[in-house]
């Protein structure tokens, strides 16, 4: 959004009068507050902001934002948001969805919105479980996971949101832990600046039905050693000591220690989020150790609304039709006297 605004908002301007009803301790609160804090930094007018959600715990989000919003039907938010954005490309459009909403019932819309690259942002609350329906396995639940609907263990292998997204031509993909609000806020600001469909996967802990599912990566005690937070143009270094890094060994990424076996900082891969070739981004997305967070891919491309606008402008400039009457009274018409 290039518009200038008269007043400086604070997060309070984006709080609605509705009482927030998520379970105590849920990461959804972190996401909500990060968003309310990010919006004043984006340079968008409040009335131009639209949140569209599907169904699920996460999808109550729009009710808590003092912006325009729609809590729609299960899985369809990307399609509704596409309509909003095509109708008015000046709006800042956000999709709020969960793992079940986006990758089960809404799988089709999810892949197609990414393919089309319309300029909107999708926040995917991935808690690897169905929360609102009280604890069934989701398309991101692990094999063997015991849930209400898999008492002997889940037999369906999971999707990786990032792999699915990149396979569907996502131009922007970021992943962030649900307990790191500062980084999350910045990613929200960055994804709004990005022109195209942005997908942000938040590793969101559900304290009731899947508590601790990301603990091995997100727990404060291990976070720095288990997560690699990538930044464009910077070497992929992680660890409490900042001495671990990634190098390419053949066709695989390998974790190395700087200062050991002759490895120096210069040997560490430098992150290029803007690269068109998706190969390395796919490898980063798949990596389990370290788990890669931050903006993994941010490739600049034409958006759907740009292509539509260019085409419409061209058709308009070549057409003799200005009013519908020009069309109705053109071609094979005849008079009856």
């Amino acid at each position, binding site marked *: 959004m290039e518009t200038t605004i008269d007043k400086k908002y604070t997060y309070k301007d984006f709080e*609605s009068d*509705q009482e927030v009803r998520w379970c105590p301790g849920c990461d959804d609160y972190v996401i909500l507050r990060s968003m309310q804090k990010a919006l004043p930094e984006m340079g968008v*007018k*409040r*009335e*131009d*902001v*639209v949140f*569209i959600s599907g*169904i699920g715990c996460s999808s109550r989000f*729009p*009710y808590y*934002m*003092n*912006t*325009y*919003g*729609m*809590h*729609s*039907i299960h899985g*369809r938010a990307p*399609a*509704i*948001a*596409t*309509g*909003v*954005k*095509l*109708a*008015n490309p*000046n*709006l800042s459009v956000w999709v709020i969805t969960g793992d079940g909403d986006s990758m089960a019932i809404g799988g*089709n*819309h999810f*892949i*197609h919105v990414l393919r089309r690259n319309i300029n909107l942002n999708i926040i995917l609350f991935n808690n690897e479980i169905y929360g609102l329906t009280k604890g069934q396995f989701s398309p991101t639940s692990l094999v063997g996971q015991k849930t209400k609907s898999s008492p002997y263990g889940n037999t369906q292998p999971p999707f990786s949101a990032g792999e699915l997204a990149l396979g569907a031509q996502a131009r922007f993909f970021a992943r962030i832990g649900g307990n790191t609000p500062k980084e999350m806020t910045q990613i929200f600001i960055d994804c709004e600046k990005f022109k195209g469909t942005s997908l942000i996967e938040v590793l969101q802990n559900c304290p009731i039905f899947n508590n601790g599912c990301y603990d091995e990566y997100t727990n404060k005690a291990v976070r720095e050693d288990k997560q690699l937070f990538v930044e464009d143009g910077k070497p992929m270094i992680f660890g409490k000591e900042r001495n671990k890094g990634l190098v390419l060994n053949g066709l695989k990424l390998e974790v190395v220690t700087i200062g050991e076996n002759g490895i120096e900082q210069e040997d560490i891969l430098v992150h290029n989020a803007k690269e068109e070739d998706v190969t390395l981004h796919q490898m980063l997305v798949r990596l389990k150790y370290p788990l890669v967070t931050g903006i993994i891919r941010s490739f600049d491309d034409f958006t759907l609304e740009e292509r*539509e606008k260019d*085409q*419409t402008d061209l*058709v*308009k400039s070549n*057409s003799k*039709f*200005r*009013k*519908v*009457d020009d*069309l*109705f*009274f053109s*071609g*094979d*018409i*005849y*008079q*009856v*006297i």
Partner: protein
Amino acid sequence: MVIKQPKHQPEILEAVIIRFVGDSGDGMQLTGTQFSDTSAMFGNDIATFPNYPAEIRAPQGSLYGVSGFQVHIGSVEISTPGDEVDLLVAMNPAGLKTNLHAVKPGHTIIVDTDAFTKKNLEKAQYEANPLEDGSLANYRVIEVAMTSLTKEALKDIEGLDNKSITRTKNMFALGMVYWMYDRSPEHTIAFFNKKFKSSPAIIEANTKVLNTGLYFAETLELIPNVYTISPAKMASGTYRIIMGNTATAWGFLAAAEKSGLELFLGSYPITPASDILHELVKHKHFGVKSLQAEDEIAGITSAIGASFAGDLAITTTSGPGLALKGEAVGLAMIIELPLVIVNVQRGGPSTGLPTKTEQSDLLQALYGRNGESPVIVIAASTPANCFDYAYEAAKLTLEHMTPVILLTDGYIANGSAPWKIKSANDMPDIKNNIVTKVDGDWHPYERNEDSLARNWAVPGTPDLEHRVGGLEKDRISGNVSYVPENHEYMTKIRAEKIKRVQNYIPELTTEFATKGDLLVVGWGGTYGSLHSAVKHLNEEGVENVGYAHFNYINPLPKNTEAVLKQFKKIVVCELNSGQFSKVLKMNFNGLDLSQFNKVQGLPFGNSELIEKFKQLLK
């Protein structure tokens, strides 16, 4: 080129029905369209109907691969494509076999004898050649070796392969028919020049074959009679021939211009509705926005998004697609946003008969959603008035802030007829409920006292930020509400809002009689068939039969019961098993209702209707 006119004085006919049939690759749709356009420009009233297989290129010569186009032209009012035909042009044995039953005994059949090969006869499951075994003795058969004559005519034109040459044989047939019915080929030649602008050889070939067919018919005098059909007495004005689906698309274009809103179409291809999509995507010059979506659900939900953002939003589909859209219709209904859903009905259930017509989605349109979710349902009744009802659907949805389902069907959607062109200036104004600021507090679910429509505040409007959603909403603020009394109140007010549309739609009228012994009742696309059947009775002197046709189904016109009660008996005629009949029974007590139903994927025939009505009058 000078075209010679028929030598002998043509015999004058009031009306004639012609059917062109052949393989689905034989160009029968084009041939039929050319004949009907030419006749319309000559001043005839016309009605046309294409009948083609669901397969794009079914195996050549097969019975199920036959494609047909029927045209009814007249110097009198023509309201249907007609039943039995006066002339059948059959380009192959399969076409003859599947259409012979429709030819009036004693009438004419033109066949391409070159196509009556052993192989083709076998494919058409003929044991003997019908041209030789005497089975066509009751018809006047004109045998012409069209394929070889076409080849001969084009032998000197360079740059044409064998396939392109053979493909022009439909123009030979058309040339013959032009001569038979005293029509000039000018319009068709002009059409070639425009359509094949970039390939002069194709223009030359088609023109030559068309004229050759015409000369051939004239010279050889195979055809004993030549006919003409004088211009019809139609209201003066500027006309064009329009297909129902095009008229639907144009109705929305007019509504967008008139309402000052931009048009958004979210759609997924489906037969027989896709032509509306094809038409609307052409019109980016009017700022039409469209999304060919990933599925039916995205078609409607993208339209809901566009509506939320302030566009005149529509989605187009056919029966199975409406089933998929059901949940989203409910969303649009509870969030009370404008949205038009067009259902071009086809034979069901499931995939059913995609290329055939039926009226079996009425109850789906009325009730095919979870919860109590009434919406406005209206139906167009002729190819040309698809324009008016598309416009009306847009007007109603914008003025009443509730979804409208517009029902058409394969018969009127693919049929064409003369349309006295309406200028946007002639159309009624369309108001909308958009608000840009409010005095005092903003309550998204406050309503207009008369229509009960709520205000429409679109994103981008300062200070009117609000949230809508599929959860039950508080009657004023629109916030989520689980209060039991509020839910009941909202359920009732949403129903009442639809009911009050009665105050904004025309009352029901009858044709031919306002009271009497029998009222024929129809709705939607059967208007032409029913109107002409009752008219026929009336012309025979039967004056106690009236005809009422419904375009407004939900709500029904206010005076419906009063009109129905003027007749002793009522017969509800539908191309389904009695869905509208159920609706009437549910709404009104004490009516003597009988039904006439047909579920064959075909329109009503004139004679079957007349027979039924006479039987009821006994």
